[in-house]
């Protein structure tokens, strides 16, 4: 099967993720969408790595996972603290600062 299709899939996932970020309200879901985008990236890396026949892409994929993990730590920390202070995980409630 043509590995290029994986690229299309990656692009699709990435777009879904981006759309999710734009559409969804719940911070957690938003965050999951971002993770989805990162995963799409990973898929792309791996695919390209396969196409190019060198390992860089796969290595990068590992790095990405680590980074994503770190991001989760920080992200969840922030989101949770916000949730605790205002009992809502909706990003639209967090709009005190505007204009």
């Amino acid at each position, binding site marked *: *099967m*043509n*590995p*290029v299709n994986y*690229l299309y899939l*990656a692009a699709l996932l*990435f777009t879904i*993720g*981006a759309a999710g*970020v734009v559409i969804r309200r719940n*911070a957690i879901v*938003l*965050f999951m969408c*971002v993770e989805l*985008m*990162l995963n*799409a*990236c990973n898929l*792309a*890396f791996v*695919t*390209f*790595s*396969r*196409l*190019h*026949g*060198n*390992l*860089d*892409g796969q*290595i*990068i994929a590992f*790095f*990405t996972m680590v*980074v994503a993990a*770190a*991001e989760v730590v*920080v*992200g969840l*920390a*922030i*989101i949770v*603290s*916000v949730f*605790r*202070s*205002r009992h809502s995980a909706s*990003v639209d409630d*967090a*709009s*005190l*600062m*505007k204009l």
Partner: protein
Amino acid sequence: MTHAATVHSLWTTAAAAPDKIPSPDIEYGQLSPTLIVLGAAIVGVLIEALLPRRQRYVAQVFVSVVALAAAFAAVIGLAAGDYGTSKAHVAAMGAIAVDGPALFLQGTILLVALVAVFTFAERRLDPLVHGNRVDSFAAQAAAVPGGDAEKAAVKAGFTTTEVFPLVLFAVGGMLVFPSANDLLTLFVALEVFSLPLYVLCALARRHRALSQEAAVKYFLLGAFSSAFLLFGIALLYGYAGTVTYSGIADVVDGQVRNVTPALAGTMGNDALLLIGGAMVLMGLLFKIGAVPFHMWTPDVYQGAPTPVTGFMAAATKVAAFGALLRLLYVVLPGLRWDWRPVMWGVAIVTMLGGAIVAVTQTDVKRLLAYSSIAHAGFILAGVIATTPDGVSSVLFYLAAYSFVTLGAFAVVTLVRDAGGEATHLSKWAGLGRRSPLVAAVFAVFLLAFAGIPLTSGFAGKFAVFKAAADGGAGALVVIGVISSAIAAFFYIRVIVLMFFSEPRTDGPSVAVPSPLTSSAIAIGVAVTLVLGVAPQYFLDLASQAGVFVR
């Protein structure tokens, strides 16, 4: 079954490889600035873990200051060792470039960080709480605002001394960011300095709701943008088969001839290159705060603790522009005719957008945020010049701008009323009458922002405009001066407010800072005036540092 074949060969090469993998050799000396800072950060973490609360503050401040100073010394040492010019090369297996721009920017970042740490460590502004001196950071970030836990923490006189290691981590990332020589390092560095900043934004002692909101917005949008960046990297990798700058550049210039048929599908596929390039660009423009990727800036600047805002506004810009320069000058010079027009557009909307929207702002911090957007536009004008002159002018501008910004935000921390910092402009009315010195200092910074001669702002602006004009971007210069005129309007408005309007009876009081903040402000003023009156030496530095290694 060509695919199968390739797969097979892939595995075989992989399998046959092990003994071929060279043992990496790392030039620790040349990476010393970064290593020192990161090491210090870890020490800071250990301090948090091991030392009793009472001693942490002093220890942390000491460690951070020493580390930053040492790192700066290391940078000077490298520069003195001609690593900036003749011995410039790529270190750490091609991951890190040690060259003029890198050193100049690292030096700037370290100095900025040093001054910023002073403002972080300030503990005289807020009144004593239960007999404890407190800084501008939450007693216990995890505690719910206004909750019992927080009250208890406040009563116990807790303070978040973790900010110091966090800053150090951020600085470590920033040091790598502009010197990263492959896209992976770029991405990692980006995250390394972003994540601590996200946290720092959430740590304000006053207005915690705003602070947390700022953190959420910054985090989500930051993650969003870095996802774009990463996807861009993926596409570039797909295009070039490598993520090292030089490798990609070679492919872009078409110097790579031996393309195995298997790679022909993607290798040198311009669609991948252009889209990927654009996405990476977007990631950087987000950090720079260029329109239309700027919208996080005002909110985050306003919500974050002011010392953090100052640090972010100054250091992040330096690092991000450094990375941008390297990307455009090292990776995509072959694509100049593709990205220049686009960057033109971005620069124009950024200059005008920032200036225009700032006109109607009513909050000092938001005002400065928008002004920083406008300034990003000016710097972009220098970036577009694509001449060594352009590079050096941008470097100079960054150095000049970052100190003005630090100083300005440091002044903002001084003007306080019962609810903490009084950032609403209406409260600044008549400040010049009540405390002329502070108002005068702030006026100096504003004039520097406005680019009035004899301030660093003017020298910088002139440098980038000159470069742009030389680079054939005359129109940008004209738009630049127009938006400067608009920008002048709101800087002047603040001055009018401070000096020509009667003080309000319920107006804020100006806190008397400790030597820490005072020296931070003093340094800001000094740099502003020196770079304004006698910029030659620093221009020389910048122009010596104007060449990228590849």
